[in-house]
């Protein structure tokens, strides 16, 4: 359940941004979540509802862009898409795959309303 503390930090960041950029309400939050990030999309959704209560992001919609896991096979050199960190290369069937993408866990942007 570290999704909860990750999103607590995010809401804190949004509150700080609200002070700096001067907006009153957040109506949408967009995240990029890689398949290999270790965060569960459903858990993020659940946690977002919980941590956004009584904040300026309460009721905002959460838009999650899921990014695929990608890697480079150490044996055959193929650039491949993988579902999990320990997947063997789907191209040659036996090589270890070094992860090159899919660990993203980012807030992209927020849509806000003035007071």
């Amino acid at each position, binding site marked *: 359940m*570290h999704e909860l503390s990750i999103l607590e930090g995010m809401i804190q960041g949004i509150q700080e941004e609200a002070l700096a950029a001067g907006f009153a309400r957040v109506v949408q939050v967009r995240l990029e979540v890689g398949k290999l990030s270790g965060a569960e999309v459903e858990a993020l959704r659940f946690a977002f509802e919980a941590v956004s209560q009584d904040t300026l992001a309460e009721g905002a919609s959460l838009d999650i862009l899921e990014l695929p896991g990608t890697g480079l096979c150490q044996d055959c050199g193929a650039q491949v898409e993988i579902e999990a960190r320990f997947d063997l290369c789907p191209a040659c069937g036996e090589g270890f795959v070094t*992860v090159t993408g899919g660990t993203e*866990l*980012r807030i992209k942007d927020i849509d806000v309303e003035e007071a």
Partner: protein
Amino acid sequence: MCTTCGCGGDGATLDGHAHAHEAAPLRPGRRRVSLEQNLLAKNDALAARNRERCAAQGWFTLNLVSSPGSGKTTLLEATIRRLQGRVPVVVIEGDQQTSQDADRIKAAGAPAVQINTGKGCHLDAHMVGHALDLLAPPAGAVVMIENVGNLVCPAAFDLGEAHKVVILSVTEGEDKPLKYPDMFAAADLMLLNKVDLLPHLRFDPELCLSYARRVNPAIQILRVSAQSGEGLDAWIAWIEARRLAPQQA
């Protein structure tokens, strides 16, 4: 055209699908604030600060992670005894509740600070920064951080350590590295603990180590028993070889 959201009708390619959501028009009175920030940015910034402090003070900091019951605290006690008199050792103990582990560490002869995370399932860089304030380790000290027993969440939180060390005991399943790949991928060293019990168990160490290497081909592995002392010389040598190496801030 994308069948999910109807974008891309103009022949645009599905590059990471991001374009599909860029186009959404904003209603009047609303604006978009671009943040482009890692969700762990706050923790990562504090971890970077911890790492700078460690480099400046010559502290060698290890983040010990494992499931509950792998023998972390017993291993720490044995490590403290072996380093005592040669290298100052201090310990940061993370648990949800109680100060029992810190009490054990102090009894073994090292200053310790207990962090109770309450509902939290992991230590974060902020807590560790404050623990370093309280401990004020002497220059050149080895700082051992015993994370909360949990193979999931501590993988995501950089504390500013030099290395993550994952401890797996042979009374657990061989397939733990496959079940919790993020942690084994994040660790530089794996200690296979309680190897003195192997004769009594149906645990295949080679299989376990092959799983660990599948998740992390670069992981280093040592077989130890905190109880019998087996393999501890190699563990101490591993620490000694790295603690004086220049650390990256």
